[in-house]
């Protein structure tokens, strides 16, 4: 091979409908090398991986610009299957396994050795019967290469999580053509001891000459296992670092970027809060992909508390768990009384409200007019905007009151629409979000949870939404708990910001803290935050 690099990416860029997510990425990977990839939410990590792994999503959205040379040949994959054929394997964050199959069946999925028979001549190769002894042999070989303790006959659904991960890795290794393995957060769902074994396996794979691209939010892992580290921010490679010559703080700095200082819109107003309104004790939430593992937190009356962290670390689980949308355990004390968890109706009754991150799914009744949307929860929960007949036996909607309410909020929140009778579906994202806010405001909540309020809306609308929240907080003294992937957004509006990592609170910082401090918390450095914690 003339080329000493296995993978060369030259000026690779990608935009989704004019929205640039990757800019001139150059990445070179040698055989047997382990490259660590670090980046904040939306830095472009997953897009980069999708391009390398040939995800059809990339091809269907117009492909990418630039050149990718793999094993000496220029490639442009149309589907992941092309990438697999070329020798690129991928271990996904969520397991791509068949739970009802044994390790053997999963490792050899669609690469099963068969015994030929006559019917195959007439029909198709697929009529050959499976060669079970050979399948077992091959599975054992792949497991042996990893030097892990994995029973080839065990069903995946009965395995501990770590063994599932080994099964995935063994499947990629079993493909003889595999030259490059992409591992997207392979340790995210594992315990530390399990993760240690996976790290050993990664080194073992690399020693076999297979290159590995390793994505993790655990800096410690990246520093121990990688040959070099690539930090992505806003779709650009910020820096390539050698583990020996760097430290966690430097990586975090490149990941979150330099602080803009006085120029940024960081909230510098110091407000004093005394009364605790919401006390969360040892909260566990089972929200798929956003699990919360025993969080304790006190929320002060009248403050705006920001909740941040990387995707999948559990920040969204907190609001969803408290509001009863996902199964939760633990204790939540609201104004001295314990809230009945997993009972959304009762929690709404007590004076808590929630603007979900899933705006179009559970936030809005898309095919209903604005006024119904705004009054809906108030109608359902509080029985407002209803006319009672026969002593409450028959309840009719009070359309006049509903419309009046809607008109009031349309004016106050400056919702752009023709009239309050317009359908929610026809509004722009920003205005839909305002309708969601109005719906929550109509309940006159004492505590308002807002999740990802600016996701998918344009910059102008973002500011309006945040201003609306701030205004509402100042005017009515409503306690607001805002969850967002965008740190800057949290810093402009919050009084305190809690960073969630691996389902736990990594630390709580004032918005004026250095960006790097936040970055370190997101990457699982719990200790660093402490100095500022007890301000």
């Amino acid at each position, binding site marked *: 091979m003339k080329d000493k690099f296995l993978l060369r990416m030259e000026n690779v860029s990608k935009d989704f409908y004019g929205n640039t997510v990757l800019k001139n990425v150059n990445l070179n990977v040698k055989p047997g090398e382990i490259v660590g990839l670090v980046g904040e939410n939306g830095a472009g990590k997953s897009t980069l991986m999708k391009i390398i792994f040939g995800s059809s999503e990339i091809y269907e959205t117009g492909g990418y610009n630039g050149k990718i040379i793999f094993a000496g040949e220029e490639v442009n994959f149309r589907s992941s299957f092309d990438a697999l054929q070329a020798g690129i394997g991928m271990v996904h964050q969520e397991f*791509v396994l068949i739970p009802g*199959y044994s390790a053997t069946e999963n490792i050899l*999925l*669609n690469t099963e050795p*068969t015994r030929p028979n006559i019917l195959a001549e007439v029909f198709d190769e*697929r009529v050959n*019967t499976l060669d079970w002894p050979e399948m077992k042999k091959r599975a054992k070989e792949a497991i042996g290469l990893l030097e892990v303790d994995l029973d080839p006959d065990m069903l995946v659904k009965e395995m501990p999580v770590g063994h599932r991960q080994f099964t995935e890795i063994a499947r990629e290794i079993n493909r003889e053509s595999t030259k490059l393995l992409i591992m997207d957060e392979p340790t995210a769902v594992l315990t530390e001891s399990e993760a240690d074994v996976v790290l050993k396996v990664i080194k073992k794979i690399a020693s076999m000459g297979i290159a590995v691209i390793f994505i993790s939010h655990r800096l410690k892992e990246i520093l121990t296992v990688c040959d070099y580290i690539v930090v992505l921010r806003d779709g650009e490679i910020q820096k390539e670092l050698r583990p020996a010559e760097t430290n966690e703080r430097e990586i975090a700095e490149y990941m979150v970027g330099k602080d803009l200082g006085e120029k940024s819109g960081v909230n510098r107003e110091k407000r004093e809060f005394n009364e605790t309104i919401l006390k969360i004790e040892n909260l*566990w939430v089972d929200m798929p992909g956003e699990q919360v*593992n*025993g969080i304790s937190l006190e929320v002060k009356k009248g403050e705006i508390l920001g909740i941040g962290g990387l995707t999948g670390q559990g920040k969204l689980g907190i609001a969803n768990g408290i509001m009863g949308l996902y199964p939760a355990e633990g204790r939540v004390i609201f104004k001295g009384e314990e809230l009945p968890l997993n009972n959304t109706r009762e929690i709404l009754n007590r004076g808590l409200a929630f603007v979900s991150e899933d705006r179009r799914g559970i936030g809005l009744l898309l095919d209903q007019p604005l006024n119904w949307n705004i009054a809906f929860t108030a109608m359902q929960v509080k029985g407002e905007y209803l006319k009672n007949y026969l002593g409450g036996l028959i309840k009719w909607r009070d359309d006049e009151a509903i419309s009046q309410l809607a008109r009031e909020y349309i004016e106050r929140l400056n919702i752009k629409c023709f009239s309050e009778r317009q359908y929610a579906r026809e509004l722009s994202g920003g205005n839909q979000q305002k309708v969601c806010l109005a719906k929550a405001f109509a309940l006159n909540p004492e505590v308002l949870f807002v999740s990802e309020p600016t996701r998918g809306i344009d910059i102008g609308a973002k500011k309006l939404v945040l201003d609306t929240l701030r205004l509402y907080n100042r005017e009515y003294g409503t306690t607001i708990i805002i969850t967002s992937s965008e740190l800057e957004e949290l810093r402009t509006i919050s009084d305190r910001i809690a960073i969630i990592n691996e389902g736990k609170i990594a630390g709580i910082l004032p918005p004026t803290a250095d960006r790097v401090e936040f970055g370190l918390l997101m990457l699982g450095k719990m200790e660093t935050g402490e100095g500022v914690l007890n301000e």
Partner: protein
Amino acid sequence: MKNQDSLKTVNPVKQFFINYAVPILFIIMIVFAAPMSGLSPVFLINEVMTRLTRNSFLILSLLIPVLAGMGMNFGIVMGAMAGQIGLILITDWQIVGVPGILLAMLISTPIAIVFGYFTGIVLNKARGREMVTGMMLGYFMNGIYQLLVLYGMGKIIPIRDKSILLSRGYGIRNAISLDGIRQSLDNVIKLDIMGIQIPLVTLAVIALNCLFIIWFRKTKLGQDMRTVGQDMEVARMAGIDVEKTRIISIIISTVLAAYGMIIYLQNIGTINTYNSHEQIGFFAVAALLVGGASVSRASILNVFIGVVLFHTVFIVSPRAGKELIGSAQLGEYFRVFITYGVIAFSLALYAWRNRIEAENERKKAMMLRRASLQNEAEEGGNL
């Protein structure tokens, strides 16, 4: 610790009763109704044997789509139509006996393949709603079948035998007698053991179908179907052509259903040209469910248990009804009531069970996660 109680798996006895609620219900009904009917054991066994040879092949045709995760294939109605077309043609050509049956099968094969291919394509577009879509397709294709048989035959497709045509000169009569092939497969070798008639060849054909299904499950294609049935996305990512695999499973099912219908009708001896196939889907599905199968799991054993239980109830219930209330009508009413009832009940039970299982899985996973995180925290503290 209260958490540990919920870690325990569900009581296995209770689990058994939940899983086999439908067959258990049927066994109870038989235990009560059989003595009440006053039928002799030999008569009863003979009747059950007849139903077994008549229906088993048809019901076996449902198994492969279940393997591929497509649920109960109500589309076998189309296979039944293909079989009937074959039978109508050989009746017209007056080819009798076993050769007649074989020729009918040969004619029905390409028709069933085309129907199956068409069904497969439609079902691929209606993922997750295969059963109701298959049922509706059956009704739709019934229209095409009627067009062909009621107008096409005698006009476009030449029919020489005027006795099977309507008096207006084209279109097949409501009922045709299959004198030429009546029970000719059953009668090739028929054993008589203590008054019980055993049609050996028909049973051998059914056994052959079973062997085919057992063999098929061991093939690469069978494994691929299982994979597709378990998780389409994982299958796709592993490079399996999901759509094609699903279409093949429906084609196999439709072709087997065509043969099954021919075996069914040679035993009965007449075709109700416009009705015979209509209820086939429901009765086959109900019998399989009575045998303890579910939408996602069905075995050969389920087929035979199902046929025996389902049809024994039908044989004894009219007589038991007559003895009990003085009306045999009740039995017929009972038959329809039970068929639809069983399907509705099984589907509801299946959905309910899935939900409970998912919830248990979730609880278990969460418990394990908590335990391992706590262990780690303790270990960290000890260091």
